[in-house]
């Protein structure tokens, strides 16, 4: 067990899977040179028949992965920019995601779509800063968003081994984070949330890059005598409803801290779930902290204003507890 960065954990998972299974190939833009760093050294180790640089043709290389998967390969597709999912959208949701169902259950499409540097990075503006996971969940596509290096390795491995299309969002804000990661192969199964910090007064459901922020916020709240539980869904679809609901039933309060857009966003789905399934346990309305529904603006103060952040979370939690009465 060593301390490695999130990006290295992803790389380790992919490398171990490529060593283990010759059907796994990786393709995308600049993956041989490894602009993003996940596939550094892969060309040397695995050769040109496993590591493919593609032209700037996102729709075609996404569709190519579908055909290759139907024919028995297990492609891993890297998208250099989160918004490239939009360019490839028909091939993702209308083809890869729908084909097995529409073919009456024939075939398997084990493709992993890796989105390293998803979400906002300072100063990249509206076409390089999206976190569009709700769009994919909406269409039934499996998706994960690990928040620690340990989760990144285990969920990436699970995604590659899954016999369905899975999107792995690797948030830009986390790629340099270090954490303990076991050297050997391991899987964190899809559909398992994790309580990242236990607490009793309220539940913060935090997603992806906001998980470490929520944990820090919980530590500050603890100093104020507020006991916040932080739950990380990790896998967005399948979703571990039971772990989320159990926490909300225990605390009676929920704040959802999500890095996707507000309207029809992932937080909206969770709020509806809690309202439908845990209404009787709620002592306060469910609150959402999300992105604003604008393209992420360029200028740092503008960018900071529209993204969900720790200070707003702290204010929200304090207001919620004040309004609903602290548990006695």
């Amino acid at each position, binding site marked *: 067990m060593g301390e490695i960065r999130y990006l290295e954990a992803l790389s380790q998972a992919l490398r171990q899977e490529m060593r283990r299974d010759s059907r796994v*190939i990786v393709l995308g833009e600049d993956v041989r040179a490894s602009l993003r760093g996940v596939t550094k050294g892969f060309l040397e180790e695995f050769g040109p*028949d496993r590591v*493919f640089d*593609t*032209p700037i*043709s996102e*729709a*075609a*290389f*996404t*569709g*190519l*992965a*579908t*055909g*290759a*998967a*139907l*024919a*028995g*390969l297990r*492609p891993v597709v890297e998208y250099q920019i989160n918004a490239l999912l939009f360019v490839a959208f*028909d*091939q993702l949701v*209308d*083809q890869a995601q729908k*084909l*097995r*169902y*529409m*073919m*009456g*259950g*024939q*075939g*398997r*499409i*084990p493709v992993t779509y890796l989105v390293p540097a998803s979400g906002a990075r300072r100063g990249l503006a509206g076409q390089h800063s999206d976190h569009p996971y709700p769009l994919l969940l909406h269409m*039934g596509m*499996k998706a994960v968003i690990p928040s620690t290096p340990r989760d990144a390795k285990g969920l990436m491995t699970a995604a590659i081994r*899954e*016999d*369905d299309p899975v999107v792995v969002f690797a948030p830009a804000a986390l790629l340099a984070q270090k954490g303990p990661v076991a050297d050997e192969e391991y899987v964190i199964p*899809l*559909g398992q949330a994790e309580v990242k910090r236990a607490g009793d007064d309220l539940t913060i459901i935090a997603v992806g890059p906001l998980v470490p922020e929520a944990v820090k916020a919980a530590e500050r709240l603890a100093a104020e005598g507020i006991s916040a539980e932080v739950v990380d869904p990790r896998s967005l*679809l*399948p*979703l571990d*409803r039971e772990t989320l609901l159990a926490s909300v039933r225990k605390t009676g309060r929920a704040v959802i801290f999500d890095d996707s857009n507000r309207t029809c966003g992932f937080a909206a789905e969770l709020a509806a779930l809690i309202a439908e399934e845990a209404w009787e346990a709620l002592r306060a309305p469910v609150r959402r902290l999300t992105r604003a529904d604008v393209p992420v603006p360029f200028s740092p103060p503008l960018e900071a204003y529209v993204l969900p952040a720790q200070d707003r979370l702290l204010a929200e939690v304090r207001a919620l507890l004040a309004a609903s009465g602290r548990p006695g």
Partner: protein
Amino acid sequence: MDPRPDLRPEQLVGLYRTMRLIRRFEERVVELVNRDEIPGVTHEYVGQEAVAAGVSGALRSDDVITSTHRGHGHILAKGGDPRRMMAELMGRRGGYNRGRGGSMHIADLGLGIYGANGIVGAGAPIACGAALAAKLQGSDRVAVAFFGDGGMNQGVVHEALNLAAIWRLPVVFICENNGYAISAPIGQMAAVERLADRAAGYGMPGEWVDGMEVLAVHEAAAGAVARARRGEGPTLIECRTYRFVGHFTAERVLGLRYRGEEEIAAWRERDPLVTYPRWLETQGVLPPTDRARVEAEVEALLEEAIAFARQSPWPEPSEALEGMYAVPYPGLPARGW
């Protein structure tokens, strides 16, 4: 038509049989749509039979095809079972897709049919993927991407042509130019006279072939398939053809006017279902009695297919939630209530 000493008489007759099967399948489908036994709309392949028959005649059963919204002909030519196709068109459990796809989505992975497709041009990169897999698996399988003149203007088709060319993938791109993208004449939608000329821009051979001549299509396809099997990369073949009927079964009630009766009549003069068996007869390959026998076999096959489809049970409504994931999880897929 030139004699084809490279084809055995049974192969020559087989091409006619395939075309006849497609034509009669489509005619029976129209009857069933009009009687509301087939829900929705279908896109008939009537007039274009020489393309599917000629191309598939050059393929092996393990080769892969991706098809289009007008896919019945491709699927029949590749060996698709008319019974399971008809059952799918009627939305029955015995259909290829268990009633989840219908006309525009019939697939049989076991026969290398990676599906008809409801999105124009979308099958082209999928065919490239099948071809890449064949190459990496050390197989000499090839993949064929069918699309139309409309698909020739879809961005992903251009991306796929380029990918196939740079990686020398064993793909044959078949552009069936039937003259119209629904109502839009290709002359108004492309500035080149021959769509095959676009191949030059991707550094691959482009061939124009008369799509009303099954042997010409077969010859061009066989050449391209052989090149692909030898590892010499992709080819774009434009097959100039024509659909004798509307874009889809509902077109006649829409009263669209985008082509004249004279034009249709002129193309019908070149109907491969008329010209080709006539030629076979002059060559002594298919005398009238043999032709009648082939046609009777086709009729019997279709009768059986329709009977099979009608007897196939409707799916249980709850089957609508099955088959979405190879690896299921509790609660997936979400239901709407």
